[in-house]
């Protein structure tokens, strides 16, 4: 069943067509990979799906509902969490404060209550424990290493218990041990029913973890399928590497 889908999305920046009639569906309960060469529109698609960019035309649907014109906070409240290509945490707040930010509250009175309610604290500590950062909970988040910040970003999205997590290059700048750790966490969360959409250039990581891989090229969907099929598809190789050199010769 399609959980998150885009239909005929067009997005232009001046003369650059970032997305051209892009249609894609991401299945519920799957770990979806989204690959494509640099500039193929992956991050723009993420921005459109999470309310950071309004498409020039087309539609974004989440669980059958149109969310095309929703703001980022509404998108998050609906159950779509995301990480950024360059890790974005709150450096001057402590780690434990960071994991409390995403806890959702409705109404002015609730907003004025103390920032850490017992149930929120329990969830926050649980997700910190999940990524292995409990010991650092009172440190300013800015003092963590880059890899730890990636884990923290992952942890604070988890707190809101999203239905789907969009990860933009989770492997970028992360050492192999940590990457393995992160991959394990993604699989574990996926078993609990969280859907993932992962933009990544590390093919080994993508092919190893994803159930389904979509390929983007020049702003639209090129191919969708199982990792082993995508890996050997000539059109994908061409998109990544350009025309076959033997043909040129």
């Amino acid at each position, binding site marked *: 069943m399609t959980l998150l889908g885009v239909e005929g999305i067009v997005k232009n920046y001046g003369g650059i067509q970032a997305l051209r009639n892009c249609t894609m569906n991401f299945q519920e309960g799957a770990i979806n990979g989204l690959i494509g060469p640099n500039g193929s529109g992956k991050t723009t698609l993420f921005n459109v799906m999470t309310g950071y960019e309004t498409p020039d035309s087309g539609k974004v649907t989440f669980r059958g509902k149109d969310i095309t014109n929703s703001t980022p906070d509404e998108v998050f409240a609906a159950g779509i969490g*995301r990480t950024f290509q360059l890790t974005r945490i709150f450096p001057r707040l402590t780690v434990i*404060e960071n994991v409390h930010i995403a806890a959702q509250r409705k109404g002015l009175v609730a907003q*004025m209550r103390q*920032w850490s309610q017992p149930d929120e604290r329990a969830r926050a500590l649980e997700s910190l424990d999940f990524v292995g950062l409990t*010991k650092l909970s009172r440190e300013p988040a800015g003092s963590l290493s880059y890899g730890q910040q990636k884990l923290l970003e992952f942890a604070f999205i988890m707190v809101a218990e999203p239905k789907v997590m969009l990860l933009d290059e989770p492997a970028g700048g992360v050492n192999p041990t940590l990457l393995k750790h992160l991959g394990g966490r993604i699989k574990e969360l996926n078993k609990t029913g969280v859907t993932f959409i992962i933009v990544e250039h590390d093919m080994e990581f993508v092919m190893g973890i994803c159930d389904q891989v979509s390929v983007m090229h020049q702003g639209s969907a090129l191919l969708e399928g199982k990792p082993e099929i995508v890996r050997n598809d000539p059109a994908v190789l061409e998109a990544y590497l350009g025309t076959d050199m033997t043909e040129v010769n």
Partner: protein
Amino acid sequence: MSTDTTISQRPTPPSYEVPKAIRYGALTVGFLVLVIFPLVFNNPTISTIGVFAMIFLMAVTGWNIFSGYTGYIALGHAVFFGIGQYATAMLASYWQIPPGWETFLLIPVSMFLAGLAAIPIGLIVLRVRKHTFIVLTIALMFIFQLFAYNLRGWTGGSQGLEVSQPPWDGSIFNLPYYYVGLFLAIIAIVTSFMIRRSKFGLSLLAIRDDEDRARSLGINTRNSKLTAFVISAIFLGAAGCMYAMFVGSVYPQFSFDPAFDLELSIMAFAGGLGTILGPSLGALIISGAQQYFLITFGGANVFLIVYGALFILILRLLPGGVVPAISDKWRSHVVRKEQRILDSELEGPAEAGAHK
């Protein structure tokens, strides 16, 4: 290198906060000092310094609720300070309020009007960020100054307006202003404290660190900023009302004064921007010093040099402000203590050092 080594080995991480006993003890002492100050120093010259300190205390605390917590440095809060002043002067004469205690009833009215004005102003200026925001707030303040100069029928133009002063005896004249000021300043500090420890306050701090990130975590950044902006304006309105009543006159160039916002930000920076008590401490030290130097070295504006030197000294020695400097000292004290415990547990300082 592996993250697995960061998994908790000691059950609870150390707390870097200064212990409650010390914090509350210091607060109580500070509060008592402020309460008895005008009774001990009953010389009107000194207690006048006290009244101005209270006015700045509530103003800077209010300013910090918005600018300190969200990181949007507003340099046009004189707009709300001025609105409070003009509201007081205009309404006192319009409603023919006799000079005396009744005038103090204009405080809540000024607060309301300043807060009300902050809604449309906030909706306009909060659409932009960073430098553009700062420039826009300054511009807005000059627009209001021009209004005050030109709407002569209401504001008296450059002639200004008078607020009649009560016929109280000189020896006790300052006391009501001082204590009402102290009361309002405490309300501002308590509000600031409650916001800082609330979910709303955490959202504001998140906006300060990364506004777009905060939005993607479900925070309605526009409403949060606007709410903080309005709350902050309310306390500036109160400060303006107190100022107009105490000084007894209102002029465009002093009500909508660019130097006022600089003073507020200097006080907040010196004490510790974005902390609860830093700006209060900054207000007490700097406004006190400023008034004292004015009286002592006032003749040839020497006080400005001394004042500037003091400010440079604070920035040089305590770049983050007084309060962050204290908490940093405490933090390194805790870290050193933890390190000693770890060292003794591991029986080898080299291993403990590698652990961080």
